[in-house]
């Protein structure tokens, strides 16, 4: 009689899936990063995006659960470094205020605040590292 076994490849796939879904999205960034990020958020972002990260109707877009925040890390870094001048649309609503470039912030500061945003307001996404920011900054400098 053949024993019914769960195929090995299924076991591996399941383990991988569990690992991937735990790592790194469900790991909270270090408290020090979140604290630094929160301070920078209060100074640089809160005036427009508000304390709850939900933005302002028609003007400043929400940061909660949007593809702009949860999507590719490079995209979000690019927005902070270069700004956004065209209105953007989220869930059928248009937001008209421009986002200025934040070239006065260094790689560490940008990675801290973006990690904070990606893990606040109900968001839970991979942290952003200073190396990520450095890479995008270099690409922008090369005109990419």
């Amino acid at each position, binding site marked *: 009689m053949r024993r019914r076994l769960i195929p090995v490849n299924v076991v591996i796939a399941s383990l991988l899936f569990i690992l991937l879904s735990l790592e790194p999205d469900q790991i909270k960034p270090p408290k020090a990063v979140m604290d630094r990020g929160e301070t920078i958020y*209060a*100074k*640089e972002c*809160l*005036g*427009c995006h*508000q*304390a*709850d990260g*939900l933005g*302002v*109707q*028609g*003007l*400043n877009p929400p940061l909660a659960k949007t593809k702009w925040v949860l999507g590719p890390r490079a995209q979000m870094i690019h927005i902070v470094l270069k*700004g956004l*001048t*065209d*209105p953007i649309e989220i869930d*059928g*609503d*248009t937001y*008209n*205020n*421009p*986002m*200025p*470039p*934040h*070239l*006065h912030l260094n790689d560490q500061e940008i990675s801290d605040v973006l990690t904070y945003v990606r893990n606040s307001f109900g968001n839970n996404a991979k942290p952003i590292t200073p190396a990520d920011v450095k890479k995008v900054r270099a690409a922008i400098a090369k005109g990419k």
Partner: protein
Amino acid sequence: MTVVVLATTHFLCACAGELPDQPAGDTTTTHSSPGDNAGLTLPSGFSATVVAENLGGVRHIVVDSNGDIYAKLSKLKDGKGILELKGGDAGRISSFGNYPGTGIAIKNGYLYASSNTSIFRYKLDAGNQVIDPDKPETIVKDLTDRGQHNSKSITLDNAGNIYVNIGAPSNSCQVQDRAVGSKGQDPCPLLDYAGGIWQFKTDKLNQTINDGVHYATGIRNTVGLDWNSSVNELYVMQHGRDDLHRMFEQYYTVKDNAELPAEEFLLVKKGSDFGWPYCYFDPKQDKKMLAPEYGGDGKIQGRCGEIEKPLVAFPAHLAPNALLFYTGDQFPEKYKNGAFIAFHGSWNRAPEPQAGYFVAFVPMKDGKPGGNWEIFADGFAGGDDKKASGRVDYRPCGLAQGPDGALYVSDDRKGNIWKITYKK
């Protein structure tokens, strides 16, 4: 106490620097309990009803002599940007106009409406009905729209002219808008085609900015403006600049940012210059101050000493989105020819509590303020916590006067319209 007012006098609320629950002035006002008057608090003798709900983003409104309400939408609804509520009845709504926008007005047999770039008009029949809703005449076209401050608010005089705000697509005309460390451009090139009021002919088609009269400049953005027929002058509400603390923390605290600069009530004459982007009005110092992008530090007045002060300095960032001079007979005498102002409510006061979300009243005498301003209708926010956080129920955006002298207020968050009436 009677307050004698000089031409350039402006008013601060009694509690300097603090936004009052009830500004100085009318101490006889009594407010009804919450729940009455469709959630609004009003002076004694006034009552309010909701005539329509959830219409969408209702910007400005106008009511014709039949009591029909026309509402301009910020976002198309079923492909249309203008609603007509026949007889003011939310059960009898029709829609037309394939463009979103803010401005709407009726004058001499025409309905005027604006998109964010253009002004159109529709001929009305003897019964005040739009004859051909699909074929408006284009009066003005190709005005600047870069998203920011793109409302083209309109008002008409009694001599065949229409006035339109072209808001500056900028906070303070920096090389890089709103960026820390970016200098102000001097002269500001935006002032050639924005940051002011332009005057056009009502009966000439397809005018562009070059066909218009550059009526006034140095006005960052205006959403509320109205022609005051009692003195035949234009008045506007300027939205003051943002971000003094975020960009200049060395000069301005978080609290300064919440309280500077004033939202300005301006009497606009042909050729007026109110100083934006070089100047802003500080209500505490009672002076036009030099903007920090142009070398200011909160104390230097510089070139701004010569700039005209506002008629009334309202608290910062409250976003006055509609202005209406009341010409009706229904309200008590003190309201006659006075100014109602709908404040959309603030966002740039954060992290300090947000404020506004009310309709204010300024008594007027011979075209000048005749007493302190006061809050006329409040309660749109839906509670103090909602007001402080800015997560409010409704945001006043439009004002209109009905044929019976009632005052209508519109909201662009959900699209409610209130009718406010008075009975002795």
